[in-house]
């Protein structure tokens, strides 16, 4: 359930990217997996605990997102949606299989001192690691909101999201705004990956499952609404936990995908979001 916080962070990242640029980031889950692998690298090579190292992961993924947007996505901003989908699919393929090439197919997990500890919180037995992950995720989301609503750059991003042409007219450097937004979205997911890396065994194919989870959340919460994404994250986490309780573990994925189908068919205008036509 505390996973919900991390899910929300993932979802917020995806929403940022979609909300601003109307680009669906198929590579979202794969970026998160890279966040996980980076955290793993730092933990094993440098001895940096992921609960500190997530900042590095966030920074690295920011750069990745920024570069991907600037170098690739920006060129096809006006192209039909199918092209954008194919592009991000290509990026996803490259990310996932480069990870496979570099790190091998075996599942990994990050060892963190904190991951072993547990805590009694009232009547409930709680994992310190999950608690920290949740906490950090919430803090990051709050920081993100502050950024978007209080800083100039954040406001520029929101303006560009609402009305690109208008933003251009008032002199916003829209290309830079887009790249930053994409970078921030990727950073969110990089951080989320690092935070979750001690809790979840991961391997390159995990990328797809994470992408699907992100899409589930974002579609429920309404594409383009950050608050919706956050709430959606919590909701989906609950649903999946329930599913895991009642079904064979190997079928847990089935729940995700079936949930996705149902959400797609009956997708609400979003809990808080706006439907894009």
């Amino acid at each position, binding site marked *: 359930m505390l996973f919900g916080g991390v899910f929300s962070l993932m979802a917020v990242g995806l929403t940022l990217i979609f909300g601003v640029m109307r680009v669906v980031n198929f590579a979202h889950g794969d970026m998160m997996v890279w966040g996980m692998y980076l955290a793993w690298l730092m933990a094993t090579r440098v001895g940096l605990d992921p609960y500190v190292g997530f900042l590095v992961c966030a920074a690295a993924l920011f750069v990745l997102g920024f570069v991907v947007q600037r170098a690739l996505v920006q060129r096809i901003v006006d192209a039909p949606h199918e092209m954008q989908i194919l592009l991000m699919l290509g990026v996803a393929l490259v990310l996932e299989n480069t990870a496979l090439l570099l790190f091998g197919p075996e599942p990994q997990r990050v060892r963190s001192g904190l991951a072993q500890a547990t805590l009694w919180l009232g009547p409930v037995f709680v994992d310190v690691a999950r608690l920290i992950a949740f906490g950090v995720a919430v803090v990051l989301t709050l920081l993100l909101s502050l950024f978007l609503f209080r800083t100039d750059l954040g406001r520029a991003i929101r303006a560009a999201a609402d009305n690109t042409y208008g933003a251009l007219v008032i002199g916003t450097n829209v290309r830079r705004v887009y790249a930053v937004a994409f970078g921030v979205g990727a950073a969110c997911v990089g951080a989320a990956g690092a935070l979750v890396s001690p809790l979840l065994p991961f391997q390159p194919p995990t990328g797809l499952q994470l992408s699907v989870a992100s899409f589930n959340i974002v579609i429920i919460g309404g594409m383009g609404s950050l608050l919706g994404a956050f709430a959606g994250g919590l909701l989906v986490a609950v649903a999946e936990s329930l599913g895991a309780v009642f079904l064979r573990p190997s079928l847990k994925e089935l729940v995700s995908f079936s949930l996705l189908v149902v959400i*797609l068919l009956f997708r609400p205008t979003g809990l808080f979001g706006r439907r894009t036509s």
Partner: protein
Amino acid sequence: MIRLLIVAAVLLLAALPLLPSVFGSYAVTLFTLIFFYGFLGQAWNVVGGYAGQLSAGHAAFLGIGAYTSAVLSVEKGITPWVGMFVGGALAAALGALIGFLGFRFGLRGFYFVLLTVAFAEICRIIASNTDAIGGAVGYYITFTGDPRQFQFQDARAYYYVALALMLAATGIVAWLEQQRFGLYLSAIREDESACEALGVNTFRYKMLAMVLSSFLTGVGGAFYAFYLFSLQPSSVFGIPLSVEIIIRAVVGGAGTVFGPILGSFILSPLAELARHYFAQGGWHGAHLIVYGMLLIAVVLFLPEGAYPRLARLFHR
């Protein structure tokens, strides 16, 4: 200039049936795969290229066709020559379901892609968990070499079957392109609402495209099963296979008759090269990196695909 090109193409076409006598077994295999994936790419082309409904889950149809024909043959002794059509029909049924859900519920673009991926993954997971068809370990077919059971001792027979499939699919697409069906699909891809205003029942035509595409892919599944003799849910229903299918059409030229074929001629050798080069790793993901980069490159620099660009080059 264009006449020269046509002559060259006809010569090549005429040469294809003769090649196996000249080729060594490696070349025969390579070409068989080129034809087979060209066939699959062409099948996808109907709904993904012409109708513009991007499906990233076509492996689902292949998998259903493969498992159906395999199980029917092994358990019931029904020859795959019949089984392939049963498989195709079942695949078409799933295609109809996905199409119905997608089009009735107004799923376009990205949402539709997700729907197709979800269904493919659901199929994969169900297959992995169904022990009756081998579960995650896979389903195996014993090789008997009996042509009546769609098994051939000589690899060259597969070459001809694959070639026939590819030519058949291409013939169908070439014919349909000039009929109302094909013309409507091309227009639907451009602007659905404008089509509706002109009297086009867009739902019906998208459904037809989906059913045809999934049927053909399902038939291809039978070939796959009786060429490889082992089926694993992760390979047969997996995204990598869906990507293999899409990329041939996209790179070669989605929405054109020769696109998927050209794409296959470009990609299969490329994949083989990548596989060889990275063989030391002992795993086969490297060619997917190449695919990914190729997809990116095509989208950025050659969005209509190789064939239209080449055609224009030769028009001058």
